[in-house]
């Protein structure tokens, strides 16, 4: 084979190899693709169809056009549950991100061994089943005998009735949500570990203080991770279900007498679907939530373009 022939054959072989590689890649991706089509995209299309029907599972669906969506717009419980959910999200997300960043910064200052220990300690609560967390916090938040009010009492503060006073139910749920900060802490810690030390050294040479270094070096360097957790935490907050359902709606006893203040959007959706058998209406509720999440995420992505620093783009 001459050098010229080899030069022609090499790109062709490379292309073929690449095609084979592509095929292998798709083969390995196939289980996920099938799973996505069957268990996510298919059901999404089905639920979109059902959202235009009246359907109780027990009999055939009947087409009702946009009636379900009109009902969604006029149902006061939709506005109430959406309001509760957005209120919770607005409180939970910034608080969780700020606390997580604080904890990650502290962990970052520790030695590798003790950092590993505390990282595990902070992550362990994430492993607790959400149902158990719900039950646990019913006890912790009890206005009469709960540990949280007992702790406030040490500082002379008489805590509220977190689980029974409508004004304090959502703040109580926000406290509960901080139980599982671990995931965000771990993500931030990983991001902090990746900040090049020489940037801090250069900033020190420039005479910056710790606050300035955090503002002008750390934050830009971890902004990608911050943005990721903002998106993920916002979506998870808007879909809050298990812990609150366990606390306030899990059985007949807890459900009777539970305040509207704990009626989160997905709980209302679940009630419509599986308690009242309004599958068509529940599907339209699901699509409204989908749109709400989509809009919020798009806004976040747009805004993030101005604030998030990606090293790869820069290079």
């Amino acid at each position, binding site marked *: 084979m001459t050098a010229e022939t080899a030069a022609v054959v090499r790109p062709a072989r490379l292309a073929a190899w690449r095609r084979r590689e592509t095929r292998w890649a798709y083969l390995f991706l196939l289980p996920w693709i099938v799973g996505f089509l069957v268990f996510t995209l298919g059901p999404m299309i089905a*639920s979109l169809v059902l959202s235009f029907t009246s359907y109780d*599972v027990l009999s055939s*669906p009947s087409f009702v056009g946009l009636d379900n969506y009109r009902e969604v717009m006029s149902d006061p419980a939709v506005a109430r549950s959406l309001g509760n959910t957005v209120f919770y999200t607005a409180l939970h997300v910034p608080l969780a991100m700020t606390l997580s960043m604080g904890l990650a910064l502290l962990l970052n200052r520790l030695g590798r061994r003790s950092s590993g220990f505390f990282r595990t300690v902070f992550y362990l609560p994430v492993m607790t089943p959400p149902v158990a967390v719900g039950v646990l916090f019913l006890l912790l938040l009890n206005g009469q005998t709960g540990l949280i009010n007992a702790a406030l009492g040490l500082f002379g503060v008489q805590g509220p009735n977190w*689980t*029974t006073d409508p004004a304090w139910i959502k703040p109580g749920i926000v406290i509960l949500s901080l139980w599982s900060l671990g995931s965000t802490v771990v993500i931030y810690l990983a991001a902090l570990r990746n900040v090049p030390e020489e940037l801090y050294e250069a900033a020190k040479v420039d005479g910056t203080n710790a606050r300035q270094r955090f503002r002008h070096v750390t934050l830009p360097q971890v902004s990608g991770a911050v943005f990721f957790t903002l998106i993920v935490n916002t979506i998870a907050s808007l*879909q809050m279900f298990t812990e609150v359902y366990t606390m306030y709606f899990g059985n007949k006893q807890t459900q009777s*007498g539970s*305040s509207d203040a704990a009626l989160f959007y997905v709980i209302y959706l679940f009630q419509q679907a599986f308690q009242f*058998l309004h599958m068509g209406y*529940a599907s339209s509720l699901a699509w409204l939530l989908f749109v709400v999440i989509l809009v919020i995420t798009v806004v976040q992505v747009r805004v993030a373009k101005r604030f998030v620093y990606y090293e790869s783009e820069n290079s």
Partner: protein
Amino acid sequence: MPVRPRVLVPLALLAAVSVACGGVGGSGGGGGDSDGAGGAEPKGSLSTLGFGLPDEIAKARVATFKKAYPDVSLKINEGGFDAQQFLSSVAGGNPPDLVYLDRNILGTYAERGALEPLDQCVKDRAIDMAAFRPAATAQVTIDGTVFGIPEFLSVRVVIANSQDLKASGLTTADVDASDWDKVSAANAKLTKSEGGKLSRIGFDPKLPEFLPLWARANGASIISDDGRTATLDDPKVVEALSYTLSLVKQEGGWSRMKSFRDTFDFFGAKNQFAQDQLGAFPIEDFYLNVLAEVSPKVPIVVTSFKDRQGQPITYSTGLAWAIPKGAKNPDAACAFMQKMTATDTWVAAAKAKAKERKSKKLPFTGVFTGNREADDEIFSTVYQPAGIASLDNGVKVLRSVQEHAFSLPPSPAGAEFEKAWQDAVTRALEGRQSAQAALEEAQQQAQKALDQAAK
């Protein structure tokens, strides 16, 4: 215009949650002693949903069925009735052969065509529906057609702390609800606070769940007899709610009272009577059994709940067996329902339960089966007084109120109706609405749900 998304249905169920939750032998027909003649000898597999084997009452009855029908392979799916599981199985074309569910929601499924009418089964197996308590039968019969075979009659009575009553110069007549002024006065005397915190609830009216009882005691009902018209805005219902709200207000308000109530060790030895945290409350009959087990010598007294004319009255609920549409082995299912609710089966179960309690040196407080014949047989041949006055008297009261029981009729939107009135009571308890405004709003919601479901 009907559409046919059979294939899409299971996917849609997933979607509604995933898109949003994402990340969302030979004796006794029911009550009688007939042989169940007329039904073919059942065989094959028989699956149940909503039924478990938590105690001797369930285990002994299942054993009786297995002995009588050895050719039936019984598959008990342990756990309570799960609507999501039931709907998924129906949508998937693979429903269980039997469902065991709360009688309050049976009407919803029956009126939507999810349950088989049982008239032929009742006839074939000679199940004597007249043997069941009327309050139980009423909940499983829609327009004259039987859709379920009832089990148990859970009634409400008043249980009070006898020491507290005595110390406050009160008697059971002050807390039996016949005289609302007396109840208020007793509540004021029995309620205690220490250090700004509630330390004893005087009289807990058990809101929201006991509103139907208070309304009936005031001469009203929250729904029409046919289960199709809500009557939540009836002035007498409003009056009953207003009165019970006043009791909660006496105790410092809902938030404070519920917060304290949530701390009760309800099923434990340190329960609210043992800890002197409660003066009196209306409660389901099962609670006497709980107290007999965890603290049999706690100072309690049981009395019937009375209407304002002084007559005993009790709100009843219970469970029922039903056969879903599409069940593969309805013959065996029918035989099972007949056998499980037959007098002889209940008596055998009561004997097993009494024996078990005796072996544990615990008092046996009887079984209230919803079947009048079975109850009579159990209390005349199996039950023995425990020798503890409070419990023995309690059992007498429970027996005496059985014939005074009423129940809510089957409704096409049982769950929605219940949610509407319970939410209304909660809004009023939280002080966000007056009793009148809350019940008027609930009336609109409930009637809308009933009308939509009846279409």
